[in-house]
């Protein structure tokens, strides 16, 4: 797929890949073998009829393709961009044995973009009202997926969102250059046109308890997402210029600090920015720092490239843009200037030892091999715990060791009757698509509960 050249794109906040033209999409779709027993569909957490929509593209029947796609996935413009297809559908593609797999994600994105750009989006028919009402807490990927499925089953759905805009991590976390916010808002508008009601500025646990919601609604879905960031707990971590990834990205994305001073939320524009961590969020932070004017944007990761949890595509984009990778480097301390601004990160040089529980080779410190790097901004991107607000205000809901809400993975049921949960609040930090998968599972669980038990 054509992309903005790296030298250009680091100067703007626009999306990196341009997307397929109709001609390109048809050529790509024609590569699909239309297997009798398509393996790709098994790999999709939301069971999209991949074979079917690709056939429609090959026949230039884009409208039919969109309709089929949306039967299973109401948010294709988002999934086509942020799903890890290389581990889900594309990895199963038969073509990939000898060649590049069919670019399923890009074709999905093509159909969604084609519909948005070319015609009025069609609102699917909604069955007769069942008389049941569901409250969804959190308008992130888990919540909006559950909402979409539940409204199409004939239930009334209200979404409560804590922030002033819906979208959750899609809006506060994932940068504009990876997922344009206009696309997210368009997909959420689509939900509203189907009849979902959205209440922003509504922090459940504070303005209303879960029990109060249960008085008004037949079931509640908790998709409250990520919570407080983890820090390294090393000396100097509270110096000025040190951010958590959540704070850095929220300033840049939700609050639009990249457009400061038109938008009034500031962000420190470092010249030498170190991001600690090796996941997708670390890549997002390091690439955001470049676009905010960093001369050097450095990823500091304690293992090697092979162990990095980020998607290949994200690592590849980061490398193309000139992000510097300091592998096998584990921060031990931050050193500040006389005004308490961070000026150096001190790292322990590591080497790889035996595999640990995760199967990845464990990093082991090399004695007396500490080194220091000059920095003026540091971003800690090593993960976060689930959001604490609902668990802490709902004492009778069972939580796990990390404060995550415990659910039945087959139904999303929690220990509290009528209350379901999914996404990061249940699993800890994971991906957008796994949150959407959990939203789908919970929608099914809620539907069964509403039909059989209320």
């Amino acid at each position, binding site marked *: 797929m054509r992309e903005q050249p790296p030298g250009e794109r680091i100067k703007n906040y626009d999306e990196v890949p341009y997307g397929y033209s109709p001609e390109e999409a048809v050529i790509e779709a024609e590569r699909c073998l239309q297997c009798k027993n398509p393996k790709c569909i098994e790999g999709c957490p939301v069971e999209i009829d991949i074979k079917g929509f690709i056939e429609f593209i090959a026949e230039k029947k884009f409208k039919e393709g969109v309709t089929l796609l949306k039967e299973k996935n109401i948010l294709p413009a988002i999934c086509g961009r942020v799903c890890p297809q290389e581990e889900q559908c594309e990895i199963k593609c038969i073509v990939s044995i000898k060649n590049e797999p069919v670019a399923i994600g890009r074709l999905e994105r093509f159909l969604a973009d084609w519909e948005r750009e070319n015609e009025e989006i069609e609102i699917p028919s909604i069955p007769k009202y069942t008389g049941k009402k569901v409250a969804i807490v959190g308008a992130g990927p888990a919540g909006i997926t559950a909402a979409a499925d539940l409204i199409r089953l004939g239930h009334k759905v209200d979404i409560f969102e804590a*922030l002033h805009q819906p979208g959750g991590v899609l809006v506060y976390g994932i940068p504009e250059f990876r997922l344009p916010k206009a696309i997210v808002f368009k997909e959420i508008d689509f939900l509203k046109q189907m009849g979902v009601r959205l209440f922003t*500025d509504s922090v459940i646990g504070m303005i209303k308890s879960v029990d109060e919601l249960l008085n008004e609604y037949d079931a509640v879905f908790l998709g409250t997402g990520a919570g407080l960031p983890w820090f390294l707990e090393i000396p100097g971590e509270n110096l000025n210029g040190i951010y958590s990834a959540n704070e850095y990205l929220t300033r840049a994305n939700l*609050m639009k600090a990249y457009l*400061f*001073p038109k938008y*009034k*939320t500031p962000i420190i524009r470092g010249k030498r920015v170190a991001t600690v961590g090796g996941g997708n969020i670390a890549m997002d932070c390091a690439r955001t720092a470049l676009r905010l004017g960093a001369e050097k944007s450095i990823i500091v990761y304690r293992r090697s490239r092979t162990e990095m949890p980020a998607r290949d595509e994200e690592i590849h984009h980061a490398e193309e843009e000139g992000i510097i990778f300091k592998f096998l480097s584990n921060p031990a301390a931050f050193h500040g200037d006389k*005004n308490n601004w961070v000026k150096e990160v001190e790292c322990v040089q590591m080497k790889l030892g035996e595999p640990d529980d995760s199967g990845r080779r464990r990093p082991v410190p090399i004695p007396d091999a500490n080194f220091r790097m000059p920095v003026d901004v540091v971003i800690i991107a090593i993960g976060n715990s689930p959001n604490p607000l609902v668990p802490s205000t709902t004492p009778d809901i069972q939580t796990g060791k990390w404060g995550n809400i415990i659910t039945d993975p087959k139904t999303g049921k929690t220990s509290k009757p009528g209350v379901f949960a999914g996404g990061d609040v249940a699993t800890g930090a994971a991906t957008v698509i796994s949150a959407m998968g959990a939203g789908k599972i919970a929608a099914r669980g809620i539907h069964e509960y509403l039909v059989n038990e209320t």
Partner: protein
Amino acid sequence: MVKIMEKTEIAPNVHSCTVEAPDIARKALPGQFVIIIPDQYSERTPMTIADWDVKKGTVTFIFLEIGASTQKLAELKQGDDLYSFTGPLGKPMEIKKFGTVALIGGCYGIGGIYPIARALKQAGNKIICFSEARAKFLLYWNDKLEEVSDEVRYSTVDNSIGFKGHAYDDIEENLKAGKKFDRIIAIGCTFMMYRVSEASRPFGIKTIVSMNTVMIDGTGMCGACRLVVGGKTKFACVDGPHFEGHKIDWDIILSRRKAYLKEEIISQER
């Protein structure tokens, strides 16, 4: 969006703003805060709730014009809408019978201590409020404080009324003179809360301060408002905003508050 029902400049540069927010009014408890975004370009700005009226469905907060977002807020008039208004947030202040409670308020914190004083009075405490400003004409809500207190002490730097100096000096003198307090609560600028904590430390009186560290989401997600209390990282938005002043690492807070001085100046240029 919520509607501004009333907005008054109650002292130069100090405004009281009452908005229509019946759901928040029903839930608000003393010591909680709201997050306000005046218009789509502004920052998310936390404000201590100064009063509320369940029957009228309104919530009141006090703000000082100090940055781009509060200037924008000051420009809005009665009948205008706020772009976003979220709350109540944070844990409420602990309200029970302690005995004699000293409440120190400065800047927006004069409004901040008012509902706490009212609730503590109802809980049977003897209430002594310390209200401070640079000069008499910068004090506000004197009558409201007097209504819920056994005594209100004023301190002004220019000596135009009451004690000459700061409230933290006044309470320190009171403590040194042998005056007994069972609890001290301070709300206002960071430096004032720090000085109150230092004044009461030698006397071992539990001193609660309301931390106003920088926040973005304010709902337990971003981690901007972190502080160190008793050697542990805490978050003002969900663990606070109230912490024991004697356990806070003040050096970190006082330096972190200055992080955006340069940007604050740029954002006010128009």
